[in-house]
């Protein structure tokens, strides 16, 4: 497809604003006025066809099955799109007086309260813009908490070897040294190793539960005791909360701080890479460290409160990705508590169902009941003898109109494929996907070259990523 720069033709633009001539020289010093502005000009129809064309070269949850592990690509209800665009929400300016935004503040206050109930936390900030931003908020709270106690020798954050890359990156951004704790043979945290690592230097342990292998850490209370006994805090990465909604709450597992991904668990669309939202919940003893403002409710009115004495400060402009919050609130009201528990039930049922259908065709590194997702690898002999790897299987799935699972993550499983079906898929879809995976394994044995050169039916074939770095072209300019 052409780019907007290749579509450009001077003079084709459409009039959207009054064409009154303005003499900028009357207002700005001559040296400050720009003469050139090399932007493309397209007619409205051209632009509409261009972006419609781009959308057709994309694949979303509405296109088909998207079992991208750890990303919880569930269906995004359309009512959420309508409510977020209600003029009473979408047109509000963030600096409007409080009395003119009571509906918006009430929604936020209720969402803070509901997310607290869902996670077992006492106070919630809606400010963080995404999961990683929530992590940074949480670890800066860890830092501020220890500092407030004069406990400044705590320089380490412990992270499991199965953790998302954002965990260690976040700890470093908050000024901590990262210490890795290995996994045990059941896929959980190696508690003996953790005992060795936990010390007066430990600021926190960051943990995802169920973890990135889709396994619930059965020794979670023991882990919490080890960290708390060492004087550290326990941080919950909420990426996998979908698995335990209504069944178990991070607050009850012993966690002190939690971030959620509203664009995973609470059905807000991922937007092809955001916007997300990453609210952070804390236990009561950490409430005053939350970023400001938070929404409070007093004398029948809702307020933006800047009254947190130990606050880490502000994490972004204003109050959060408000439009995303409206969508998540809508979802929680639609499902209710019972509906949320059913989400976890079916997310776990669906993952186990796929696993049961493919386990004879794949290597299963941990023989346990997974939760909402699981990790497998192609059979070792297929990788070794035919050279068919996880990447090849992923690319071959594209030919069957599936989005592939997450691949090569977590790092502790060789040739990992991480499959998360979510709760919104039918039995037929799950079965069809499992059958296709099995068929690709069989095909890999019979005709390995065909699998290794997949995809065969997409608008472009495998792209040369090395070339993108060696001969970088990171943008286009008008006129080439």
């Amino acid at each position: 497809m052409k780019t907007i720069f290749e579509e450009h033709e001077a003079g084709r633009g459409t009039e959207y604003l009054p064409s009154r001539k303005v003499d900028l020289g009357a207002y700005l010093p001559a040296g400050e006025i720009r003469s050139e502005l090399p932007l493309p000009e397209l007619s409205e129809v051209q632009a509409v066809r261009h972006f419609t064309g781009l959308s057709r070269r994309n694949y979303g949850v509405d296109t088909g099955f998207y079992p991208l592990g750890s990303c919880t690509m569930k269906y995004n209800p359309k009512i959420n799109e309508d409510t977020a665009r209600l003029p009473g929400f979408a047109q509000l300016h963030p600096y409007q007086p409080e009395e003119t935004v009571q509906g918006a503040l009430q929604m936020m206050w209720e969402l803070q309260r509901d997310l607290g109930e869902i996670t077992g936390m006492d106070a919630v900030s809606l400010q963080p813009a995404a999961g990683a931003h929530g992590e940074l908020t949480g670890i800066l709270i860890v830092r501020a908490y220890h500092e407030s106690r004069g406990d400044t020798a705590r320089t380490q954050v412990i992270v499991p070897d199965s953790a998302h890359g954002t965990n260690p990156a976040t700890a470093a951004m908050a000024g901590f040294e990262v210490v890795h704790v290995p996994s045990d043979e059941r896929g959980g945290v190696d508690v003996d190793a953790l005992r060795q690592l936990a010390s007066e230097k430990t600021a926190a342990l960051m943990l995802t539960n169920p973890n990135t292998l889709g396994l619930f850490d059965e020794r979670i209370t023991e882990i919490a005791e080890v960290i708390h006994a060492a004087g550290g805090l326990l941080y919950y990465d909420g990426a996998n909360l979908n698995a335990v909604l209504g069944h178990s709450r991070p607050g009850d597992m012993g966690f002190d701080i939690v971030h959620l991904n509203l664009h995973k668990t609470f059905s807000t669309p991922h937007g092809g890479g955001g916007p997300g939202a990453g609210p952070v919940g804390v236990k009561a003893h950490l409430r005053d460290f939350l970023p400001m403002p938070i929404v409070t409710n007093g004398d029948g009115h809702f307020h933006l409160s800047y009254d947190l004495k130990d606050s880490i400060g502000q994490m972004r402009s204003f109050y959060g990705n408000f439009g995303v919050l409206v969508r998540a609130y809508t979802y929680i009201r639609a499902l209710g508590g019972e509906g949320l528990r059913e989400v976890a039930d079916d997310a776990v049922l669906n993952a186990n169902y796929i696993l049961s259908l493919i386990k004879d065709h794949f290597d299963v590194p941990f023989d346990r009941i997974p939760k909402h997702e699981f990790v497998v690898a192609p059979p070792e002999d297929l990788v070794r003898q035919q050279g068919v790897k996880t990447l090849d299987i992923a690319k071959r799935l594209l030919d069957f109109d599936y989005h592939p699972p997450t691949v090569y993550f977590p790092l502790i499983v060789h040739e990992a494929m991480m499959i998360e079906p979510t709760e919104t898929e039918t039995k037929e879809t799950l079965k069809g996907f499992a059958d296709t995976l099995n068929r690709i394994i069989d095909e890999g044995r019979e005709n390995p070259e065909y699998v290794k050169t997949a995809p065969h039916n997409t608008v472009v074939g495998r792209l040369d990523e090395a070339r993108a770095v060696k001969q970088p072209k990171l943008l286009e300019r008008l006129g080439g």
Partner: protein
Amino acid sequence: MRFTPHTEEDRREMLRQIGASSVDELFSDLPAAVRLDRPLNLPEGLPESEVARLLSTLAARDLDMGKYVSFLGGGAYDRYIPSVVGEMLRRSEFYTAYTPYQPEISQGTLQAIFEFQSLIAALTGLDIAQASLYDGATAVAEAAMLAWGQTGRERIVVARSVDPQYRAVLRTYAHGRGLEVVELPLRDGRAAAEDIAGAAEGAACVIVQHPNFFGLLEDVDSLVKATHDKGALYIAVADPISLAVMRPPGAYGADVAVGEAQGLGIAASFGGPYLGFMAARQAYLRRLPGRIVGETADKDGNRGYVLTFQTREQHIRREKATSNICTNQGLMALAATIHTTLLGPDGLRQAASLSIEGAHRLGDGIGRTQGVDLAFSGPYAFEVALRGKASVKDVQGAMLKAGMLGPLDLERFYPELPGHMLLSVTEKRTTEEIAKLLDVLQGVEA
């Protein structure tokens, strides 16, 4: 509402296949001590018709913006958005997709980001741009981290005339890395090159917004020179709308440009989701935070786009990554790309020109109005800072009564500016609306 499609028969069959007797059995490894033994205490679920009613009722408790004229700005603006933008954003192939990890089926998102990077580079006059950041404030903070990584210096200098939200977030981020933040004081509402000489000794960067938070034009040439004299990076903060008509950061010597692109087709939406951007000189490519898209080809020579230079990023580099950012503001970058494509150079220039003209009509009027005065001298655009005899609260009340929103109370962020306030004019404000505002300002009793 339920979005779980299984019938009881489906569940039975699936459990039979799994070899489990019940769904609860699949949760049997959760220790009793951590199980929730009661239902979640949430309102009961509702059918779609009731959810729609509930949310409409809540939204109706907010001011009906259809009946009010807004002169509020200060970092978020009421600009005209062509109908096409909203229409295209609802193409669900875009908004229901994840980050484009599988390029063969994500060429739409990838090419859109490539085009976004190209537009941001053109607007800022710099060599490269990345895929987006959460907002203008975090973009400023990330730029400071880039400068620290590049220079190894632990002092960040920021002009006090930079948006207070941005400075607040910068302080939060800087504390994490243990960096010191020093502010350049206001000199008639602006930063002064003389102040850089002392403050920027051993600094990683100097951060200046232009036009600044008060709408004032900074003397960027002298500021850039003073910054480079100290071996620090110059980080320009700019609204992309201003860049349609004003000399871009690349042309006056900035090393990095960041800002908030909400004005490019994104609703005010009570503060988010918005769109942070970052552009830089080529030399800083490997220090940029977040996603970057590049062009390449498949084995048949078909052009295609991929996420590239990923060795900077958290999923590869982990604790050594340039930032922890993963999910960014992809759909908002798409909105900005569509908006900029539609308006084109003429439309974007017109949006900026009409806004500047309107701001000056208001400013000139204030100069002729008793009881209010312009707060600062010298050239300005987009925003009008003023001070009056009446309290800011009284002005806000009088405007609200007249069907208008504004002004922003500057003392809230600048204790040294009591009684000062900020009004903003966009291309949507008509001559009549500005005249009416002047009448209201005239009528507020001190």
